[in-house]
């Protein structure tokens, strides 16, 4: 179980990963349905580190949409299903900081049952697992493009995972890094916030897109596909930004172009 040693900013203490230990692969619902390439790149990255990957087919969602909307009783049902599904695994790895934060930080609010809390505390975000747990700093990728990085707010502030995606990105050969101005500010996705407070969400998203266009990157990568879904939607709407692509960080960490 991963232990919280400081809460603001969060600092975690990880158990030791024993070589050959299988990880339960957690592919969040929207990645499964709309962005399977991110999931497949995740599998590839883990296998290259000789980590056996198992994908429990019973899995659905972490419960975050209902939790963030205030419907905790409904979220609890889904959280319990998640825990039943992943209980056999000591390590649960997923390519989404936001869903990881739901499991690790928020499960205990939905359901204080120690079993639920303990299983939630086994969930690790992909880049965090690679860098903080396995000690990987270079995945051997080559990606000759102009790339900017966006770190989702749950990844950044609930998990405190900022260095791992940065470290891995910097290791990529021939990559031209363009820093996103004001990169700490939220992109405005916020789950159901994006439709409940659509005007405000869009105003925040437009700022992000303006900054992205300003920094000159052709590709925006992130450990958070949910933010990218919102940013990509905005980019595609405007002919001036349609050329900018969005990709999960894992996809360029396995690239060899």
């Amino acid at each position, binding site marked *: 179980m991963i232990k919280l040693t400081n*809460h*603001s*900013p969060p600092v975690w203490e990880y158990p030791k990963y024993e070589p050959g230990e299988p990880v339960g692969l957690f*592919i969040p*619902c929207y*990645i*499964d*349905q*709309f*962005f*399977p*390439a991110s*999931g*497949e790149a995740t599998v590839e990255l883990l296998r290259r580190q000789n980590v056996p990957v198992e994908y429990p*087919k*019973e899995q*659905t*969602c972490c*419960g975050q949409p*209902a939790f*963030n*909307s*205030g*419907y*905790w009783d*409904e979220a609890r*049902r*889904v959280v319990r*299903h998640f825990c039943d599904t992943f209980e056999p695994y000591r390590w649960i790895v997923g390519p989404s900081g936001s869903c990881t934060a739901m499991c690790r930080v928020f499960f205990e*609010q939905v359901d204080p049952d120690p079993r639920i809390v303990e299983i939630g505390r086994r969930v690790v975000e992909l880049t965090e697992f690679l860098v903080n747990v396995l000690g990987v700093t270079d995945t051997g990728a080559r990606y000759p493009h102009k790339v900017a990085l966006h770190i989702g*707010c*749950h990844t*950044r*502030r*609930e998990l405190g995972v900022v260095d791992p995606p940065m470290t891995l990105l910097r290791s990529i050969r021939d990559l031209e890094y363009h820093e996103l101005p*004001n990169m700490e*500010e*939220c992109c*405005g996705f*916020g*789950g159901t*916030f*994006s*439709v*409940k*407070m*659509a*005007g*405000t969400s*869009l*105003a*925040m*998203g*437009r700022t992000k897109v303006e900054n992205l266009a300003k920094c000159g990157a052709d590709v925006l990568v992130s450990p958070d596909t949910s933010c990218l*879904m919102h940013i*990509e*939607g*905005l980019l*595609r*709407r405007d002919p001036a930004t349609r050329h900018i692509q969005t990709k999960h960080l894992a996809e360029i960490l396995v690239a060899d172009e």
Partner: protein
Amino acid sequence: MSDTSHLHGAEFLKSQTAGLSEPAGSKALGESTERSAKQVREMAATIPQWQDWREAAHRIKRYAVAHLDKLLAEFERNISVRGVTVLYAADAAEANRLVIQIAQEHGVKRVVKSKTMVSEEMELNHALADVGVTALETDLGEYLVQLAGQRPTHIVTPALHLSAEDCGRLFADKLDEPYTAEHKALTDIARRHLREEYLRADMGVSGVNFAVAETGTIAIVENEGNAGLSTSAPPVHVALMGIEKVIPRIEHLPVFLNLLGRSGTGQKLTSYTHLIHGATPGKKMYVIILDNGRTRALADPKTRVALACIRCGSCLNNCPVYRRVGGWAYGWVYPGPIGSIITPQLVGLEKAGKLPFASSLCGACAEACPVKIDIAHQLVYLRHRAAKEPSPVRSMAERLMWKSWAWSMSGPLRYWLTMTAVRIGVRLAKFLPWHPLQLGAWTRGRELPRVPKATFRGNWRHNEK
């Protein structure tokens, strides 16, 4: 932004929260808050003990909030031995009655006020006007807002929405001064008009930043000297404070002063820090301690921490939503993330249940909070309560929607059926002439994601065979 002076309390709340989802957009507000947030972050980064200060302040406040009964009594005992009268008010109406009573007892006609957020909660200026007493704001920002007949947009910098040009026009219009947009000339005008008022006033009203139980001291921080004058020049001084302002010991004060100046305005220390132990000789002093819904926040162990707030405004400056919607959109005295967690507790979820939803839950507020209030987590918790308790967001339709969602996410076959329907829906959406509800809210400014041929699980099954 429109003139809102005619709106009071809950009426104001009801009419304004529409601005949370459709921001009016003020570029200047966004830029100035972003600038000040950055300044504070950079300053904090140079202080190795910053996180320790935050933790210490958090613990002191948690202790104080848990021992209010004892600490308030101790504070009262220690300040009243020096002739200060301490009064308690359960709500805004009672507090107004007390202030009016004091004013009438001393034959007060004119009041000067330094900054007090509690008086905004009470709408004290209106209450005094009703009994023929004039109240004048002396904090420059509050003065401008009062002249303009508006409400503050920010708890620390109330006139953040006004440009120098706006101020020049306001002075020309209301004070018959020649127009100028030059900063020094503007402050000189304000100073000239205000100076006379301190001498003419019969009573001064102030807020309280910290009330020290051990010594019976009230601490007031400010930058303009107006609080010093308002509390000492007139014959009567009334200090207004919420019950949560008390801290146990005088040695606890420095950590808060260190955090408050830096978090609020990026200053190492505010220009003035007043420690008031009693009335100026020959004058009279009162302290009114107000509950006004605070014990509601205290009653729930999960929300109690909100009472640790020291009103620095840092969460406002760091909030991407506040930056775009401005202070008035929150509909009451306290805007921004802290407003979204305390307003529902002070005025009730039935009036302010919508506020906790005005957040993307990015957590920039909690990261900036000098007393480590987990504001983002509080917001989600209050959403949970707003969905259950009487509130403008509680809806049977939405509950049913989430119930069916929970059912469909509790097994792989149901998940497959639901998601297949979603995929078909997303594919067909582009053929619809009009997008209803949430779909429309998404597509009014964004494209829907492209639907790939296969899902991850489909490919996995195929490849792992």
